[in-house]
């Protein structure tokens, strides 16, 4: 411990000036990072984690400033430096990997040129030497053909490759401090797993100190040596990663860890714990502990006096008046895991009646360019095959979860079911009655029974309409209510989604993301539909909010018997909510199974890869077993035979390449498309696991 820390942050307060008033987004943050150490900074949106790292980098927006405190890198105070002086430090001693690599790379410069630029600027390399260094740097980040990549432009690379390039650039100067700001958030899980592997390997080799900022507890558990938990602009707990995940002392941390749905946790077994309330606004900070308004342990002192960060155990600091009680087990048990509600009533209706929704061999193709383009460029004649022959059934009152990575066609499928996308061929039927393809051609009665919840809460409510107006529209139009009746119904709907009735008069700008999504859910439920298509309804929400929205969906399904077609990229979320899980890859269903026992396997190799890629919020979890090579192929040129053969970890040989695999059925009723029969698949998959 005698070695001075690489990065030392003391009592840092960072504010933004808005209309002549200072709003402090980060207050009194102190921490240090040693060489070779990775400090994870975890927090929900609005926690100030991005502001904190921007302040560390001395790269705040025009209206932001370090109000007090010090940031020193190797004993040099960065807070004092001018932008001019910082230019010698940025890129050389301090570098960063951004969240969105595409916007961080210059679209008009070749990759090699961009990397060479850094070594010319900071390492004094000239001409060819700089380009050679670029090739070498790319080889370090495991890019297969670095020479070729240096000659390409950013848009010619996939997201995963772009992120590798951004990592290569950040590490090329051998920085003293590396800042990773949500570096894998915009990537798919399989790509994320590969990038995290790369980070782990690279960080072991270098001696740089690393700040790893993320909202994802699974990623933090895997990457960090120590973790700092931020809430509402304050650093509230900091501890070694194992200690934090095993024995958290801050009520917020305890609850946050509880909110994450675990793989294999189903709605029948547990109700997800949630954190009631919202993160406080910067304009309206509580006088005491910032978490007190939401804390189950809050007592008078918590509301009156702000707790100081104190060392509770060696290396484990916490800012809480009641950490001793937390240590003694005072956190109310029901706030951590609640027993399941009885959902068995719903099970009975499962397979007894005809399916509510039937999708039969549905194909959706998009033409690229117009007719004239296709005459000029033969390549544009082949369409994008977004959904490529999907058959799926949704039973009454059940949830079918559809999981896939980006580009798998899951959203296109969802949108064609509700009629927002025009399918090329195939059939969609509800209660055996075939539906017209486009929503505008469908009967009001059909629309009434088929609703949708969209991904982006920000876009799903009209910013000019009050919540009441938004909810009234479907009540009047689809459910045929008169005005007085509709108003009563609006109040009932708000109650059903656990929002105060006076929210009817609010505009969306006055709601948080989670509240907006609740209103969107209420709107979908307004006309009492039979089926709601949910397109990633929780992916834009923070974990604590996500848990309460998932609970709400389960509760509404139980009370109203509505079926869901639930689309998500997150297997844990789908696993929690679904009765039937379908895995989709390149517009094609690869595996479909009852959710009960889904996680037991054996799985289609793609599902297997997905499952093992998910970062688990447990520092002792086994690292990724299966790595998927390459990227999802383009939906224009779908591979022959089994469309997964180009990336398959269980590739057999020519048969996979040439012959489309048949449906296989396991004794438990799981269906998948692969040439490997169930018993063999089970064998290879269990033998691959060391335990």
């Amino acid at each position, binding site marked *: 411990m005698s070695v001075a820390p690489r990065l030392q942050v003391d009592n840092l307060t960072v504010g933004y000036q808005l*209309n002549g008033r200072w709003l402090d987004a980060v207050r009194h943050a102190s921490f240090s990072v040693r060489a070779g150490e990775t400090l994870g900074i975890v927090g929900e949106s609005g926690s100030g984690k991005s502001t904190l790292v921007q302040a560390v980098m001395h790269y705040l927006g025009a209206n932001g400033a370090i109000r007090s405190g010090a940031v020193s890198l190797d004993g040099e105070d960065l807070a004092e430096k001018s932008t001019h002086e910082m230019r010698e430090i940025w890129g050389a001693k301090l570098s960063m990997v951004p969240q969105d690599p595409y916007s961080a790379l210059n679209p008009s410069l070749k990759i090699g040129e961009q990397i060479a630029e850094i070594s010319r600027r900071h390492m004094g390399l000239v001409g060819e030497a700089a380009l050679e260094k670029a090739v070498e740097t790319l080889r370090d980040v495991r890019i297969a053909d670095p020479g070729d990549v240096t000659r390409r432009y950013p848009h010619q690379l996939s997201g995963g490759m772009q992120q590798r390039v951004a990592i290569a650039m950040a590490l090329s100067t051998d920085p003293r401090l590396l800042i990773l700001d949500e570096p894998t958030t915009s990537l798919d899980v399989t790509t994320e797993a590969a990038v995290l592997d790369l980070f782990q390997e690279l960080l072991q080799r270098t001696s740089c100190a690393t700040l790893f900022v993320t909202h994802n507890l699974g990623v933090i558990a895997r990457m960090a040596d120590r973790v700092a938990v931020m809430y509402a602009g304050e650093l509230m707990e900091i501890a070694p990663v194992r200690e934090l995940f095993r024995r958290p002392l801050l009520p917020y941390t305890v609850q946050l860890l509880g909110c994450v749905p675990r793989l294999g946790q189903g709605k029948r077994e547990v109700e997800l714990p949630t954190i009631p309330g919202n993160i406080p606004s910067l304009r309206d900070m509580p006088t005491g502990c910032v978490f007190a308004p939401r804390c189950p342990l809050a007592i008078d002192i918590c509301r009156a006096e702000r707790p100081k960060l104190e060392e509770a155990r060696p290396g484990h600091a916490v800012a809480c008046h009641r950490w001793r009680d937390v240590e003694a087990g005072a956190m109310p048990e029901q706030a951590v895991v609640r027993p399941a509600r009885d959902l068995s009533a719903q099970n009975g209706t499962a397979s007894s009646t005809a399916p509510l929704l039937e999708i039969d061999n549905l194909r959706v193709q998009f033409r690229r360019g117009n007719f004239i383009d296709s005459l000029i460029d033969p390549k544009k004649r082949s369409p994008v095959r977004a959904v490529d022959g999907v058959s799926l059934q949704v039973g009454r009152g059940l949830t079918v979860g559809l999981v896939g990575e980006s580009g798998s066609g899951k959203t296109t499928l969802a949108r064609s079911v*509700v*009629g*927002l996308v025009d399918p090329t061929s195939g059939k969609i039927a509800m209660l055996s009655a075939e539906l017209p393809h486009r*929503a*505008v051609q469908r009967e*009001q009665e059909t*629309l*009434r029974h*088929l*609703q*949708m919840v*969209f*991904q*982006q809460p920000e*876009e*799903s*409510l*009209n*910013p*000019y*309409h009050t919540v009441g107006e*938004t909810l009234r*529209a*479907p009540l009047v*139009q*689809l459910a045929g209510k008169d005005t007085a009746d509709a108003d009563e119904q609006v109040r009932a709907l708000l109650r059903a989604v656990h929002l105060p009735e006076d929210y009817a008069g609010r*505009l969306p*700008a*006055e709601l948080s993301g989670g509240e907006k999504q609740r209103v*969107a859910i209420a*709107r979908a439920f307004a006309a009492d539909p039979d089926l709601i298509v949910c397109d990633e309804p929780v992916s834009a929400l923070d974990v604590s909010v996500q848990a309460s929205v998932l609970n709400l969906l389960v509760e509404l399904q139980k009370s109203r018997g509505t079926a869901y077609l639930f689309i998500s990229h997150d297997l844990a979320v789908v696993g929690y909510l679904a009765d039937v899980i379908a895995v989709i890859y390149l517009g094609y269903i690869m595996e479909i199974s009852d959710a009960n026992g889904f996680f037991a396997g054996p799985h289609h190799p793609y599902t297997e890869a997905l499952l093992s890629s998910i970062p688990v919020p447990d520092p002792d979890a086994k690292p990724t077993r299966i790595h998927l090579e390459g990227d999802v192929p383009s939906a224009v040129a779908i591979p022959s035979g089994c469309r997964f053969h180009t990336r398959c970890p269980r590739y057999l040989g020519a048969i996979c390449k040439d012959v489309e695999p048949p449906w296989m059925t396991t004794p438990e009723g799981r269906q998948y498309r692969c040439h490997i029969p169930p018993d063999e698949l089970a064998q290879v998959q269990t033998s691959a696991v060391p335990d």
Partner: protein
Amino acid sequence: MLRFVRRFRLAFRGAPLATAGAVGVAFFLFVALIGPFLTPYDPVVNSFSERLQPASALHIMGTDNFGRDILARVMYGGRNMLVLTGSATTVAVAVGLAVGLLIGYTGGWLDEIVMRVFDSLLALPALMLTLLLTRSLGPNRFTLLVAIVVLYIPIVARVIRSVVLDLKTKSYIEAAVLGGQSRFRILAREVLPGVLPALAVEASLRFSYAIFLVASLSYLGIGVSRPEPDWGLMVFEARDWYALAPWVLFWPAVSIVFLVVSVNLLSDGLRRFFQYSGSTP
């Protein structure tokens, strides 16, 4: 009504330039409305005994080469100007809004055809179009009105169309489609409010350009003919006299500048007014 006033206050508070613009426009409207009733002078009757008099208690802005009171001419001219450009802009903006909403939301062939027609209209120089119209309709205010309307409909429609194309992809529009609402209702209830901020800016821009256009055209002798009181025409007539009597040129020119600047400043306030509350930037 109270909500209206509150929003108005919210939009203009902390925006001194927009407020100045609003005050300026209100001033011109007031003068145009009331002014002609206050002045004893007739804007077109000559009075050779009072030629080219500088400002005095009788003639606050002085007189021109025909001895006419410049204040009276500026006020009558302002009234004519505001009536003409105001009505022309209103028609152009209303039609442009309707067309823009329709083609933007419908898309497809309709959009393609209408946009190409607009392109060919926009390719025609404003001056040439006005000259052609003057030939067929005669040199009068109505011709100018038609010219402005024809010239500005495509411009307004294009702006609105591009906003609609952006709004169309929002989930709340799709939710309205799934809510069984008719196309008209979706356009009126869901799309229109989102278009209003851009429309307000565009309308005030068009208004100020229309003022410029009318002034320029009458300066060039297209549109209004002597002895009518018209700012552009007054500037034109003042060319021969301004060395001798600068006020002849000064007042109409300053009026044009002030009105145009006020309208432009007002546009920012209008945009803020129509933006949904809670996010006044």
